[in-house]
């Protein structure tokens, strides 16, 4: 590399790190930097050099980028390596048109053809007025604002509908397939949604549609919903600092199909991006409601996040078919899944679901037991009463913490009626020194009696109204007033 004729940089290599080679390979032979370059255009040139250094052979070369850069203070001399020397135009070149001219009869033009009426042309007519300039500005702005990809998609879809030739339709479907990937990678989600929507409409509308083509159109949303594709999409969204417009994402998620459900559920438990989450939640809810069979299967998924979300969705949707898998999850799952299964079974609330729930009362985990007893209580599932009765009277509950005790007594009080008052009264007011319950159990018994709320229960509560223990007294008074503990 020479500066003012003096060699200032010599690099033998022809790699992308060689500065002289960077210019030379694309034909640039001389740069002239004018005053002002250093302040106005240096950064632009450095940016271009960096871009060219990393560019693949398919990308724009230095000459194109310099041209597009529209430099004012930089001039460059170059050798055009891409344009071969074309024959220079010369006068009088004989072409076929000349030879034919000799043999073809001359055609007379109509009389009107050559005569231009000068009065037709007012000189001032041909200058654009302000309204026309405004029109042009608007049109050019529209041109550059318009979504070209969607425009091209619309062209391809029109071609598909209008041309029934198999080869053309094959070609268009392949292009749509390619475009879908391009647009996904470019985060053009609105266009992907448009593509899927329109292809499905075309599938219903196009005339003479071959089964193979109909199938390929139908496969487009399925491809979009493949686990790998959805996973890639969600990962890019999660990592993105600037997620796409919510409306675009909603449109895209609306086009996901059943095969996407597992991946969507999995990502719900992993997603960090709070802006994307509500839309994914919405998509999960829609997918789950439209694909309940898949959802039920996913409760048995070996991926904990998937099984958990599937259990929750199945409960929210009150999917009766999910009772079996939920019951299994209640036996085999981890704590979170067992808890979710309890809630789901409670939400489903069918006799089968509630019967399956009973098993949760024996769960090793306190949270599961509490959730179970609350779910059964909410559903007022009386068949469980004998079991609750045993628990209330059993020794194990005495070892439990106050929260669990309270949940069990509340449930018991809600179901037992006057039949349970005697036992509860004994627990609250029993005087025997050896059988005297501790304050927590007595307070819980008071709460249970409050739930029973019969004259007998009221009477038992009133007898304990002057209890010295503050915890018990508070519970009794609250129960008498009809409040909970």
């Amino acid at each position, binding site marked *: 590399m020479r500066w003012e004729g003096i060699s200032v940089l010599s690099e033998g290599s022809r790699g992308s790190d060689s500065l002289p080679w960077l210019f030379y390979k694309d034909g640039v032979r001389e740069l002239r930097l004018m005053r002002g370059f250093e302040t106005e255009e240096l950064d632009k040139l450095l940016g271009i050099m960096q871009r060219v250094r990393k560019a693949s052979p398919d990308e724009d070369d230095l000459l194109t980028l310099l041209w597009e850069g*529209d430099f004012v203070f930089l001039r460059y001399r170059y050798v055009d390596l891409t344009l071969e020397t074309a024959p220079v135009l010369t006068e009088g070149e004989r072409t076929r048109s000349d030879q034919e001219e000799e043999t073809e009869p001359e055609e007379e033009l109509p009389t009107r053809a050559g005569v231009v009426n000068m009065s037709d042309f007012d000189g001032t007519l041909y200058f654009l007025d302000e309204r026309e300039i405004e029109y042009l500005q608007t049109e050019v702005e529209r041109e550059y604002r318009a979504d070209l990809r969607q425009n091209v998609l619309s062209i391809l879809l029109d071609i598909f509908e209008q041309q029934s030739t198999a080869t053309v339709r094959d070609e268009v479907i392949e292009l749509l397939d390619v475009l879908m990937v391009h647009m996904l990678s470019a985060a053009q989600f609105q266009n992907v949604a448009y593509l899927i929507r329109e292809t499905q409409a075309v599938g219903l509308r196009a005339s003479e549609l071959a089964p193979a083509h109909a199938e390929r159109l139908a496969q487009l949303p399925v491809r979009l919903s493949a686990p790998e594709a959805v996973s890639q999409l969600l990962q890019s969204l999660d990592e993105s600092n600037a997620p796409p417009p919510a409306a675009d994402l909603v449109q895209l998620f609306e086009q996901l199909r059943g095969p996407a459900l597992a991946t969507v559920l999995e990502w719900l438990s992993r997603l960090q991006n709070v802006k994307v989450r509500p839309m994914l939640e919405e998509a999960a809810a829609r997918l789950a409601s439209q694909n309940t069979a898949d959802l039920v299967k996913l409760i048995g998924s070996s991926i904990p996040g998937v099984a958990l979300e599937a259990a929750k969705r199945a409960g929210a949707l009150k999917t009766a078919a999910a009772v079996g898998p939920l019951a299994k999850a209640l036996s085999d799952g981890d704590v979170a899944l067992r808890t979710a299964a309890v809630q789901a079974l409670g939400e489903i609330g069918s006799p089968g679901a509630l019967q399956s729930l009973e098993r949760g009362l024996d769960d090793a985990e306190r949270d599961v037991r509490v959730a179970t007893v609350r779910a059964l209580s909410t559903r007022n599932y009386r068949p469980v009463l004998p079991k609750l009765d045993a628990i209330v009277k059993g020794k194990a509950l005495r070892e439990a913490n106050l929260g669990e005790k309270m949940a069990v007594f509340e449930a018991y009080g809600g179901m037992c009626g006057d039949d349970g008052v005697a036992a509860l009264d004994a627990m609250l007011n029993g005087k025997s020194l050896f059988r005297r319950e501790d304050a927590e159990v007595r307070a819980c018994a008071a709460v249970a009696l409050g739930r029973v709320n019969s004259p007998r229960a009221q009477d038992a509560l009133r007898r304990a109204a002057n209890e010295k223990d503050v915890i018990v007294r508070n519970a009794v008074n609250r129960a008498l007033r009809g409040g909970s503990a």
Partner: protein
Amino acid sequence: MTAPERPGTTGAAVQERAATRASSTFSDPGSDGYIRRTGRGLIISLYAALRAIRLYPLENEAVQNAVQDLADVAGALVEKEQELEIRVSGEFVFINTVRLRLDLDNYASFSQLLSLFRSSGIGSLHLHTRPQVKDWQRFLALVLVPSQDPPATRFHQLIGRLEQQGLTAFQLGEPNESANDDERAKSKEVAKKTYSQSVAVTKDLMTSVRMGRSPNIKKIKRVVQGIVDQLLNEETSLIGLTTIRDYDEYTFTHSVNVCIFSVALGKRLGFNKLQLYDLGMAALFHDIGKSRIPSEIINKAEGLNEDEWRLIAAHPWMGALALFQLRGQQELPYRAMVVAHEHHMKLDMTGYPRPIRPRTMSMFSKIVAVADGFDAATSRRSYQTTPLNPAQVMQEMRDNPRRGMDPVVVKAFINLTGIYPVGTLVVLDTFELGIVHAVNPIPEMLSRPIVRVISDAQGNLEHPGTLIDLAEQLEDGMYRRTIIKTENPERYGIRVGDYFL
């Protein structure tokens, strides 16, 4: 191989002047940017002042304010740069050798200034001192005095009046014709090379697509850049070459011609350089769909049957598909696809293909449609053995709404090519034959283009002929020559393209 030089968009002579300026005349770093910004303001102020003086009496407040504004802007430039020169050359305005960029925001003011300077025979206005507001008023009023005199006469009249009125601050210069001639000669050579390369590359492009190969996009980009550069510097030479219309190479020359007309039209419409590039790329590709049609149908000289016509009419949508074949681009050429698909549609969405989904025709497609319609109609090609007269085509495009062309674009196209488009063979009232060489730079002289007289009154052909300006007047105010009709060059055995080589 040659070693051309590109300084953004400027031409060779301008570059030299800019270099001189940068190295000697002005030492303020970055002052080009300042001049460019302030210069645009100056032209807009000048336009506003001229407009106000045309509309109101001099003492009107609107005039006073507009002229004051002009005096302030011009004065600031004189003080900062020690001098102020407004010079027009071709279609460009220079302020102290810095060329101002034309865009849609300042289109009208530039057009007005160019028009005024040309009709008054003014090449440049030079200020060394800061004129008073009243001096500006008197100067502008003088320049706006209506006159039927030719520009050269008018220029000398203006000089005399300025002296009489003691307006010495305003120094007028004539257009620099000799420099323009040199530039024109150089430009013509560059244009020939650009045109040849463009046709060769287009041929390569169409052949590659026909063979199912990926064409070399870099080459295509380079030729479109060349066309844009050439048209930004001097458009006459390249537009002149569109008259070649080689029968054998019709598909290729037609694509290049449409590209040239489209870019020139875009320039007229105020597009910037990169927009022109986008437009040029789309225009060059507009007929790429024809490369999917058997060449025997494309080149069939006798009439086409219905199936063959249907195939020809398929080329727009085939073009959209074919453009997916273009590899080696960071992004697919979506804009070109849209233009290829739409260029035979009409404004009301009739034409072909008929869209199913609602669409609004792209501005680029509207431009290419006009350029394509004009070049196709005025060319001799396989299924049109007799080309139509360019003036007739122009009139048809303007007057026949069924053509479905955008009237504003057609209007601009007529403004670009004149009522008599470049390449039109005309008969003059002197019975000489002439070929329209360029539209007259004086806007009011659209019907009086620059013509190359190629025969004497007896019909003896001359080569290369003589360039004359049909706006030229005799002493009695009559025009020296006037077009009486246009003619079919084939009737006279004239190859119009030869006169542009």
